[in-house]
């Protein structure tokens, strides 16, 4: 059984320079309370692995705006001109990864696989510097696994085991990121007693979750 902790308590666990996997797609399904707490604390030199950096002043965009981030691995930054500006001025190093490759690289990191063999990116700038593997008469890029020091995942509902449920398009990267970090911090909208979430409704088993935030205010 887990104690639900305060957001500030969780944010204090994250040191400067940490690699964070952060769920969400343009802010939908992002752990907004954790992001606010990291901004408030002033953590620096973070590496953010996420689908995107949302918009300026929204979701992950807040971490970009406040200068907490030195490196981004994402599939899309086009809707956040601040990320693009900081990339151009070399304040933030950006690695752009095709979205499907990004999620599989994180899954590989979480599931103990050596990498991902995909045709996505062949013949494009994504191919540069990467190992090519031939199998079954076809060529594939070998994309390497990604893991985080922390995964910050947003969930609709949790129980005190840490079992998580997600809602609609707020699933996105969260269930996969919960597999792939040394420490997984879950930010649920609500927390219910053990037994309330039926086994078949669980999308992330509680054994993957290290820390559970209190329910949303």
């Amino acid at each position, binding site marked *: 059984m887990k104690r639900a902790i305060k957001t500030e308590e969780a944010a204090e666990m994250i040191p400067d320079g940490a690699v964070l996997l952060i769920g969400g*797609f*343009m*802010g*939908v*399904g992002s752990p907004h309370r954790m992001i606010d707490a990291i901004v408030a604390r002033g953590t620096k030199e973070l590496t953010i692995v996420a*689908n*995107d950096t949302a918009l300026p002043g929204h979701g992950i965009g807040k971490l970009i705006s406040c200068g907490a981030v030195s490196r981004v691995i*994402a*599939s*899309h*930054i*086009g*809707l956040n001109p601040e990320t*693009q500006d900081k*990339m151009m001025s070399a304040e933030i190093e950006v690695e*752009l990864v*095709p*979205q*499907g*490759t990004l*999620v*599989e690289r994180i*899954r590989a990191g979480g599931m103990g696989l050596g990498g991902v063999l*995909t*045709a*996505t*990116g*062949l*013949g*494009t*700038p*994504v191919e540069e510097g990467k190992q090519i593997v031939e199998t079954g008469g076809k060529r594939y890029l070998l994309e390497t696994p990604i893991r985080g020091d922390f995964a910050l995942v947003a969930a*609709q509902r949790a129980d005190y085991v840490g079992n998580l449920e*997600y*809602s*609609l*398009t*707020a*699933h*996105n*990267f*969260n*269930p*996969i990121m919960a597999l792939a970090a040394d420490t997984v911090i879950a930010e649920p909208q609500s927390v219910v007693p053990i037994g309330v979430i039926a086994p078949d409704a669980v*999308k992330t088993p509680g054994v993957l979750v290290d820390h559970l935030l209190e329910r949303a205010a």
Partner: protein
Amino acid sequence: MDAKEIIARRVALEIQPDTLVNLGIGLPSMVANYLPSDVQVFFQAENGVIGLGARPPEGMEDPNLTDAGGSFVTAVPGAASIDSAMSFGLIRGGHLDMTVLGGLQVDERGYLANWMVPGKMVPGMGGAMDLVAGARHVVVAMVHTAKGKPKIVPECSLPLTALRRVSLIVTEMAVIEPTGDGLVLREHGPGVTVDEIEAATEAKLITIGDVPEMALA
């Protein structure tokens, strides 16, 4: 009828009943408006719901239910929530029947460039590379020229999106099918002559017999 409406109406006719279709943001998303009411289709957005519905009435939005552009949507009866791994598994695994995407350039090989302009626009490829590499049918929906400059060219000068011949190019001037022999001009736009199309196209176009006018939904 403006160029975008012509394109959207023509692409709508390509959509087969009982298929899974991904519409890119912008112009491609307009296609849904012109779908015949008797054609049942599941729309997928890469951020994670199969069975996207129209925009909800004001005040009935769900913050956890948006399309890939971040706009509020609804879910049709029979919709299914999926995470990013399943979303891109469907895309790369050949389960997506059709994707409709915008384009910056398409060339005589049928290769598409639609995600970056070096030194200018580096938004990231998002899901585009996976979509083009993986969908069964890739339809490029774009205006025929950009500020008078042809976008259909002998060989893309912009970085490619994938090493895959797209299925069809639909512009307001023409419907063009890339084949092993080159680009075949299948239809001309309303009131547009073949000569006008050729003048607005840098790539070589193959015409076979009479070129009919495009039908519009």
